């Protein structure tokens, strides 16, 4: 069983091992977060601190071909954040080495 080497039996173990670590979170609506994970639950509701949110805004110019819109990136910081689980697409812990 090769999952024994990493000590992961179920996907939530990955999140549990990331508590108190800085994680990358990909959200619906072209939003990304980077923050320190304080708590989570089975819905993937998250509590993050020291968060930076990155929002990708694509403006489609009139008559521009598909995928040729200008991309704007907005960032903002928050001290403490509750993330509702249903918006979460992906969570990536810091690399375990």
């Amino acid at each position, binding site marked *: 069983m090769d999952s024994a080497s990493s000590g*992961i*039996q179920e*996907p*939530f173990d990955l999140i549990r091992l990331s508590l108190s670590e800085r994680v990358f979170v990909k959200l619906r609506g072209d939003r990304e977060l980077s923050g320190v994970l304080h708590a989570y639950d089975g819905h993937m509701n998250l509590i993050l601190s020291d968060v930076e949110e990155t929002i990708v805004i694509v403006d489609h110019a009139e008559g521009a071909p598909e995928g040729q819109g200008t991309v704007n990136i907005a960032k903002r910081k928050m001290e403490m954040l509750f993330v509702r689980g249903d918006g*979460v*697409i*992906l969570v*990536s*812990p810091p690399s375990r080495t």
Partner: protein
Amino acid sequence: MPRRPTSSRPHPPPPLPTTTGSPTDFLKGVVGKRVVVRLTSGVDYRGVLSCLDGYMNIALEQTEEHVNGAVTNRYGDAFIRGNNVLYISAAEPL
């Protein structure tokens, strides 16, 4: 009265493939293998499947994020929330 064709013997069902099994058997078989996970958004994640649960939450290792065929991100580990998953495809022979 409608007439049935004279040679109306139904064909026997095609032989079942040699590897039958339930979807769960497939998923058990691909743990530890390279897979492609496609999300409903169309984004693909290619990596080694560490494990998954009943919600189809997925843990991947050595993950590459592909958008329109181009690599857009790499993650050592990634947790994918199951509701976003469209399919899991085996990327190497089982």
